[in-house]
């Protein structure tokens, strides 16, 4: 039952209270457009939270569709039918190395993390999100979007022998080069909607300047040593990526699917919110906007960097900070608070899913067309355990996932098997990824 008015423009709801983006979620705000025959595109997001979980309050007791949500997953009550709870997935390549850096940097590559304080940074391969972006990224204005909350952790940990930047990135363009993530909501908004507002002349000028620069950089190549070449080539690749983006904006849009979102823009307030809850909510809203407007189909998001010791005293029943609480040493009072921090993250995940579900696309919802993976690179944070990882998968990937179940995989099943299955559902017919042994059984 569609209303007679057109869908509200972003401008209307972005003028919410303070810095918040208030997304519409009422049925009354659904667009006028009748269901079209064009299939909406599939979207994929990978969401990371640090410091693991308390497994007893995370893994449901029963498998299949008749399971109860344990304490940490209770925020998913209303969305249970849209989620798959996955247990039994391991990241074997993280069994050695330090407690955190060697476990987070490869969250989406599944391969070995090179122990280094700088030289030869390496996470084994391209991350799963970038595999998709590199294949289909040219179909949207932005090939992918890398989002986070914390600035990159500075310094090197000379004791464990890793650069701390490993704990700050999950998206890797190559095995040796992470993608910078944007943590400022206003900047994200400008990346999403700024370019369209630019005058065409401006855009053409920028393109010719980038051409000049590309030539400059190419001429320079001959004069550099090997390692320096890698750095310059990174710059060359980055220029080409921006050129492609400008080119995309200057050509008529060839996408059959037309997003249901009005294209005008009013940005969220400038600056990074000091309040964690507000910051996270803004970023989640922007993820919804990015998918909704089909600005990109691939997003990664880090709730915090690894080893984050964010103060979670804003959560009821918690008096302390995240990393400390994860080292609970089996003290029931700490475990109780650890679970509550885990549950807060699931609550945010549920918020995002709720928003995606409220947006109609074609015959279904945006959530049905998406596949949102949510998890951590440790199970019990107290033990830095990279086995039996806490992983949730939401959405139906355009009808290719049978949700509403708990799937417990047999012992030693690689997390990468899930990535193989996700890639296949993003129309990449791969047989292997990372240390996979095949696709993950039972997803559809």
């Amino acid at each position, binding site marked *: 039952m569609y209303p007679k008015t057109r869908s509200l423009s972003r401008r209307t709801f972005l003028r919410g209270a303070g810095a918040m983006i208030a997304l519409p979620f009422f049925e009354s705000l659904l667009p006028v457009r009748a269901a079209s025959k064009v299939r909406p595109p599939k979207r994929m997001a990978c969401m990371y939270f640090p410091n693991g979980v308390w497994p007893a309050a995370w893994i449901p007791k029963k498998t299949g569709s008749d399971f109860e949500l344990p304490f940490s997953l209770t925020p998913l009550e209303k969305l249970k039918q849209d989620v798959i709870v996955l247990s039994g997935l391991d990241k074997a390549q993280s069994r050695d190395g330090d407690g955190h850096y060697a476990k987070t940097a490869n969250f989406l590559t599944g391969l070995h993390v090179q122990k280094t304080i700088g030289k030869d940074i390496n996470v084994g391969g391209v991350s799963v999100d970038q595999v998709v972006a590199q294949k289909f990224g040219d179909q949207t204005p932005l090939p992918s979007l890398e989002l986070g909350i914390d600035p990159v952790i500075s310094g090197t940990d000379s004791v464990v022998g890793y*650069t701390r930047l490993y704990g700050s990135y999950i998206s890797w363009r190559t095995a040796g080069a992470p993608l910078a993530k944007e943590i400022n909501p206003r900047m994200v908004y400008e990346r999403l909607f700024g370019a369209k507002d630019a005058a065409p002349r401006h855009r053409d000028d920028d393109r010719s300047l980038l051409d000049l620069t590309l030539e400059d950089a190419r001429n320079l190549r001959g004069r550099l040593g090997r390692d320096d070449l890698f750095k310059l080539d990174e710059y060359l690749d980055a220029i080409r990526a921006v050129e492609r983006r400008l080119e995309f904006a200057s050509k008529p849009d060839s996408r059959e699917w037309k997003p249901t979102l009005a294209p005008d823009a009013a940005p969220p307030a400038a600056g990074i919110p000091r309040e964690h809850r507000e910051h996270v909510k803004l970023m989640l809203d922007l993820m919804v906007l990015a998918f909704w407007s089909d600005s990109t189909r691939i997003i990664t998001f880090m709730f915090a960097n690894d080893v984050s010791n964010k103060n979670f005293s804003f959560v009821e029943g918690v008096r302390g900070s995240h990393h400390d609480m994860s080292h*609970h040493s089996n003290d029931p009072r700490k475990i109780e608070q650890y679970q509550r921090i885990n549950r807060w993250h699931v609550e945010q995940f549920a918020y995002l899913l709720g928003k995606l579900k409220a947006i109609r696309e074609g015959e279904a919802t945006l959530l049905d067309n998406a596949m949102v993976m949510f998890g951590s690179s440790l199970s019990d944070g107290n033990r830095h355990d990279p086995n039996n990882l806490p992983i949730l998968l939401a959405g139906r990937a355009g009808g290719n996932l049978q949700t509403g179940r708990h799937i417990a995989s047999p012992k030693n099943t690689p997390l990468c098997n899930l990535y193989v299955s996700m890639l296949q559902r993003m129309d990449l017919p791969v047989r292997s990824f990372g240390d996979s042994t095949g696709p993950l059984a039972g997803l559809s």
Partner: protein
Amino acid sequence: MVRTRLPRPLKMLPPRATYLKSLLVCALVLDGFAAAHGADSQFEKEIRPLLKTYCLSCHNPQKKRGDLDLARFEKETDIGMGEEVWAEVAARVLAHEMPPEGKKQPSIEQRRKFVRWAQSVAKKSDDCKQLASDRTINFYKGHVMSRRLSRAEYNNSIRDLMGLDLRPADRFPSDGSGGEGFDNNGDALFTSAIHVEKYLDAAEYILNTILNPSAADVARFSQQAIQSARARLLIAAPGPDLPPHESACRIVAAFAERAFRRPVEDREVERFLTVFDRAMRRGDSFEMALKLPLKAVLISPHFLFLIEPEPDKDGVHELPDYPLASRLSYFLWASMPDAELLRLAAERKLHDEGFLREQVRRMLRDPRSRGLAESFTSQWLGLGVLGETVRPDPQRFPEFDETLANAMRQEPICFFDNLIREGRSLLELLDTDYTFANERLARHYGIEGVRGPAMRRVPLPDKNRGGVLGMAGVLTVTSFPLRTSPVLRGKWVLEDLLGARVPPPPPNAGELPKDDRNTKGLSFRKQLELHRSRSECASCHQRMDPIGFGLENFDPIGRFRTEQAGQPIDAVGELPSGEKFNGPRELRAVLLKQRTEFLRNLARKMLGYALGRQLYRFDQCVIDDALKALEADGYKATVLIERIVLSYPFRHRYVKK
């Protein structure tokens, strides 16, 4: 804390041992050197049995406590595998930190014999003299990478290039660090598409502000400032005698030369002018058209990257004058070279030691040397997280706001800047009777009579403060949101200040309550001591915790206190060496005795920052040399910096094809 202690056999040891008697170990990470050592079969006969009896129950391949496996040394020929291991092992055993309390202890004679042996194995040959040549290149792996500018460097460069402090890089993504822990490490500086977008935006913003101030958001700057920036940029107005192309040519050539920090060739300028000519043909105004080549300069790799072109031959090469000028200015100013430096480079004088030294002195007196204080100090002390990811609990500490946090960040920077500018002793970082504060921070410290937001030098009447250990920023980032952490503070002193190595806790180590409000009648300190009674914890905690106890008089946001949760503060600490102290003032006196470790670590950090890379074996020579020079000349900050600039690694480039 009651402890039985074996008498220390220090007097029986060779003189070199005295500086090792500290609780601390300077862990030199020596690279890829596996020399054969002259230790005879003594190892198998006498030393290996000692290892077996006292060490291997923890330091075996399974447990690998402290990331150390000593069982792998089975035969005498294995010893060379871990030269750096033995130096640390010797120091730890000598200081009675190993074997830890509660474990079987060796006799005095056994300990002495073992330490002497380990020290002899660890003793380095004097590489410094023989290594500085192309023939010994294998030891000199100090490859400084051509790399992009860090955020701070970009901001400072734009300020000096345009004459306006526009700070466009505040909108760039943050940078990670590598090597010795700084964000000017090429290996750890990546470039994503997002950077190129930001570079384009930044160039647009910079040039709009100056060329088209009416359209730009320029409320931050006075008309006068903008006019002078315009005059600096537009050095040749088109007119009857000067066609637009010629005028643009002069402007762009002068601008590119400064931006690229080297002379530019005509054909480079002509290439940039192609976009100008096209814009003029389509009818753009002169300044609108001029904006394009200027923008091209600002996104050129020659501006954004510090490029050190490579000669054809492998080996170590003396750095030519222009790249040397940039190395120098990005080290001392975190910004581009000025006209004088470029002039000396053009005259090929800069590589001359006399000129170079003179430039260092001039540059350190220049206000731009604050760039060094800002980048180096906050990264060395780990203050970047203050108010970002590390924030005191807002309910418990409502006093901690952005104004206070900002003053906390400024304090060590102003302090260090002043050390450099006035050539003062680096030991003031450990102990002194003044600091820098504004009204807000002074109030925080209980000092009266400071007015206004400007940071200035303030005498410290209270002897509890003085040096970095009394700075609120340091004390806050080493606390938890709801309580102090003697462990974190102790670890910070050991690792960041003294350069020691503290292994991470074993899995399943206990944790303390998050809040310092008295629980179960046990004082917080008692709980921590209970925690330390486990032997696997004791060996590290008996090094860290006492130092942290000595700082307990400072609360989680660095205010002085004499009681906590109704109990008087107990700030007594005793180090494994037997040294005792009560409170921050006495702790500082103890730390001053560790000045060698402190200076060695500081020199190491400073060299790592200067070179923007990880340090290798050969770099140790520079540190040793700097330490000698410091001792001979009152520990002046300027001496350290001068020695680094004049050093071999700073003035050479290692090329591998």
